């Protein structure tokens, strides 16, 4: 049963990935549609980041995580190096949890 789950997930996930890449060749997209693709990708990533920052299994994730993300975003805004953004976000959240913030 486990094998079936893994194979189905693997095949399905790969199908999503590869069909996008291969469709790009076949589809003769008009210019405006090609211009929208990066907009769509950025929108998906923004939605992903926002839900990952704020929610956990359908509910609010607690304050520690969004606060850490905010610290990271502010660092990025101030053009801090990427490494600092990632470490700053994680460290802030970890510190808040250490202090008992959920």
């Amino acid at each position, binding site marked *: 049963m486990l094998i079936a789950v893994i*194979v189905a997930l693997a095949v399905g996930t790969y199908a999503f990935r590869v069909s996008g890449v291969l469709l790009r060749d076949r589809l003769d997209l008009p210019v*405006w549609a090609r211009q929208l693709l990066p907009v769509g990708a950025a929108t998906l990533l923004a939605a992903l980041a926002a839900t990952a920052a704020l929610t956990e299994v359908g509910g609010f994730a607690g304050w520690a995580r969004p606060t850490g993300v905010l610290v990271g975003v502010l660092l990025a805004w101030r053009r801090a190096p990427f490494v600092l953004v990632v470490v700053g976000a994680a460290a802030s959240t970890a510190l808040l949890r250490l202090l008992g913030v959920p």
Partner: protein
Amino acid sequence: MVRDVAAIGAAIVAVGASFGAVAVAAGLPAWGVIAMSLLVYAGGAQFMAVGLVVAGSPVAAVLAGLLLNARHLPFGLTLGDTVGRRLWQRLLGSHLMTDETTAFTLARPDGDARRRAFWLAGTLLFVAWNVGTGLGVLAGGVAGDPAALGLDAAFPAGLIALLLPSLRDRDIRRAALGGAAVAVLTTPLLPAGLPVLLALVGPALLAVHRLRQPSATPTGATDGSGPADSPAEARSLTSEAVPVGRKEQSC
């Protein structure tokens, strides 16, 4: 660039380790855990699948995981030009596509730099995830809790940092902020995966808007409020879709 990818890569090793440890602790055999990381290679779907398999719902595990991963289709459409011309590059590159890889790739200007970014991030992060999983399996239940390390904050912060330069473009900013709001507000109501896909409503509306005025002639057709009607604005979307804010300091 290598340093940036390594920063996320380190976090991915840790989360991979926690996946390996959680899955083994939940009773999955080591080979199954490792095979899942190698073949599925999608963290969120893997955690979800382990939970549902252990709960005795294998069908739900597959459906929920696939719903969560449907976003890779539009990612593939966007990165299709970047991955490479040869068939093996397209077939192999497809497997390496993740949220983080997509973000790193789109943060580079079109062309060779973008292709290199894709393969560098794709390869390093794939290795990181699988090394992490292996370590977690070896460690059994002993691997640390990624929440205690704040790693759940590291990924959204990294994604947003990579997106920030592209938000200077008005169209992208509107679509991204609107989509993020839609996704967050619908998360309590919909199964995981759907809210993020629903965020595409914004870009879809833009598409309808442009279909309705297929005026190739920019003269007169632009009212100033229409998105990217002027050729200059339109060009900025493709060639520097995500302008590189930090190119100088990171490669």
